[in-house]
């Protein structure tokens, strides 16, 4: 990859501070903590950022989204005061949820946190921790009651990544980049004050904060796809190929583009509705899954189409522009990168289970909790 890790981190941190001072880094946070834009205003902001091809805040992503929404929903006042301003000052977060044997079946995680006095001692292995090699803090799920049913013995912690016993190793991905990491935890000490919510209530906290969170994230991503992604796809179709023809003049290509524009338009409305419903406390139990599934598969189909239409030339694009996000116009890489949306945070298969069960009341599989 053309850009070194150091350049990437420095660039992201500088860009975060620039946005922060303009008041645009955390528009979705409550006003008292430094945010306070309405949903409509956020959409306009994201449209503008996308239209100007502004880089996305990938490094701060977990901090401003997952960490913040967890703290706001379930953290103590002290935890909020400790971390929310620090995030604005540049504190980086990662998420320690998945494990080698706990992927789709996240609730079967084995990392243990044993209470000893007023600390927990943590041992185990985490996987797919995005950005863990740059993170200061980690949202950690660990088992505090090995005898309880799977989902009932898990607790939610804030873990200092600089604590002794935390060992991080980057994993190289299909795209060639290394955003994900493995994390080996050996007798890591976490003070009990860094427990979020009640002991053994971690599963519930993770579920609700993740669901509520998703809308915010999707709002930005949908605007990005609609404004930057579709524009680049259209440009790829209008650009003449080596034999002098423009893909757009093939009515099949034009038809597919019209289909994508329609779907993106629907996605954008859907994301807005999701956030609004959530704000009004009328969110449906499958809302977040519907949007995540639809976005990720639409992204994958669009990027695949971009790769197809661009022909051989797209294979010679060996890297994506700095901080471009999911769609960058390097279509083959974009297509491969789209699996980063259909697999993590609940695969598309798991999302369909959730939608069928929570959205339509269909029965679970027998024997599967």
């Amino acid at each position, binding site marked *: 990859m053309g850009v070194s890790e150091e350049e990437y981190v420095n660039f992201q941190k500088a860009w975060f501070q620039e946005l922060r001072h303009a008041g645009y880094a955390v528009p979705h946070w409550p006003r008292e903590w430094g945010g306070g834009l309405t949903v*409509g205003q956020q*959409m306009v902001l994201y*449209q503008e950022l996308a*239209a100007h091809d502004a880089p996305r805040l990938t490094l701060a992503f977990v901090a401003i989204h997952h960490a913040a929404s967890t703290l706001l929903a379930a953290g103590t006042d002290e935890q909020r005061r400790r971390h929310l301003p620090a995030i604005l000052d540049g504190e980086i977060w990662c998420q320690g949820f998945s494990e080698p044997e706990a992927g789709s079946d996240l609730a079967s995680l084995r990392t243990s946190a044993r209470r000893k006095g007023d600390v927990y001692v943590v041992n185990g292995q985490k996987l797919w921790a995005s950005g863990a090699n740059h993170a200061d803090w980690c949202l950690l799920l660990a088992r505090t009651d090995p005898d309880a049913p799977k989902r009932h013995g898990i607790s939610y912690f804030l873990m200092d990544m600089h604590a002794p016993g935390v060992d991080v190793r980057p994993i190289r991905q299909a795209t060639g980049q290394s955003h994900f990491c493995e994390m080996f935890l050996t007798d890591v000490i976490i003070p009990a004050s860094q427990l979020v919510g009640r002991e053994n209530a971690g599963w519930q906290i993770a579920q609700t904060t993740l669901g509520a969170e998703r809308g915010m994230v999707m709002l930005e991503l949908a605007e990005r796809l*609609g*404004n*930057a992604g*579709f*524009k680049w796809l*259209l*440009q790829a*179709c*209008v650009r003449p190929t080596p034999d002098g023809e423009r893909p*757009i003049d093939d*009515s099949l290509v*034009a*038809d597919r*583009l*019209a*289909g994508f*524009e*329609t*779907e993106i*338009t*629907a*996605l*954008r*409305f*859907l994301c*807005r*509705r999701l956030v609004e419903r959530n704000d009004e406390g009328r969110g449906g139990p*499958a809302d977040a899954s*519907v949007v995540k*599934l*639809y976005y990720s598969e639409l992204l994958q189909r669009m990027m695949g189409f971009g790769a197809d239409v661009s022909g051989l030339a797209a294979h010679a694009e060996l890297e994506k522009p700095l901080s471009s996000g999911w769609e960058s116009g390097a279509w083959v890489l974009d297509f491969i990168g789209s699996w980063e949306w259909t697999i993590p945070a609940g695969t598309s*298969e798991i*999302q*369909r*289970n959730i*939608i*069928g*069960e929570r*959205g*339509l*009341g*269909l*029965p*679970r*599989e*027998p024997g599967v909790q």
Partner: protein
Amino acid sequence: MTSDLASVHDELRTVARDVLGAVRTRTAGSVPAPVEWSVLAELGWLGLEVPEHCAGAGASLGEVAVILQEMGRAATSSSYLGSVVLGVGALNLLGAARERDELLHGIATGGLRVAVVVPTAQAEVASAETPFRVESSGGRFRLDGQASFVPDAIDADRFLVLARDQSGDVVMVVLGRATPGLSVSEQPLLDATRRFGQLRADAVEGAQSALLRFEADPATSVQHLADRGALAIACDSLGLAEAMMEATAAYARVRYQFGRPIGSFQAVKHACADMLVQIEVSRELVGAAIDAMVRNDPDLGIAVSMAKAHVTGAAVGIVGKAMQLHGGIGYTWESGIHTYLKRALLNRSLFGSPRAHRKRLARRYLSVGTNEIAGSRALS
């Protein structure tokens, strides 16, 4: 949408679901009986968009859309498309005039049914050939032409025929059922919940007063009318898709095979999940198109084409999957799923196929700079 309007819609929807659902349930097997026209009149659904001075409610397409969606859900048989969607829609595009107001009053009060003779096979009608020609001279006109697939022609008392006059403008000719030279015949279709007709005018003559003109540009008006038709059909498809999703999920919860409810198998569960996703997406597109039409947004054609293309296509997929997941039962006449499948298929073809609507959308990519397109559908 204000929360006042939302609660009006909720009320309207509740009543419509009761009334239309009851008709559907009463109907033996799957042979749909038409809903009583007088009932629709009493409920005030015929005059929703009719101005108040013509005995209407002075409401908007937003309210009509609620009824249309519920009619799709119950696979209702009625002349609502002909008289209300197209009839009132067409008359509202004319300048205020005594003839027009009388017709609107007649429709609103339930005494009069009309059929509008506008092309129903295309997405874009403004530039299409008009199959009727009208020539005026000496205070009289003469009309010639023929059309197929005219919605609700069989039950109509009056026909509003769009025809091109000598100057090339499209005008509306109002004809009574018994006009000499006018012949109307039923055109039976597989979808037994709809009634279409063929209409033929051979040297039909009449007084010039039966020839009405659009208030705005005629081509724009005719396209607007076709867009109303397309959007109405999209509402219908959304409603019928919802009904099929709910029926399928309900069946999957109670039908046991291999000792388990079939809804616990992922093949069934995931197919139902995909239905829900498609319906959520469809709702947004239909909602956006209704808003655009109510606001008379200059981009309303785009919103309508997006909705018509996506929703009527998705609905065919949803009903087909519903038939599949119901297994053998779903393939019987008695289950009634075929009624929905035929209606969904007809909807896909009416007022322009998904392909035709995407073609209309795609034309913008050729004629407009790329920067202008991206973000053109910014949300209000």
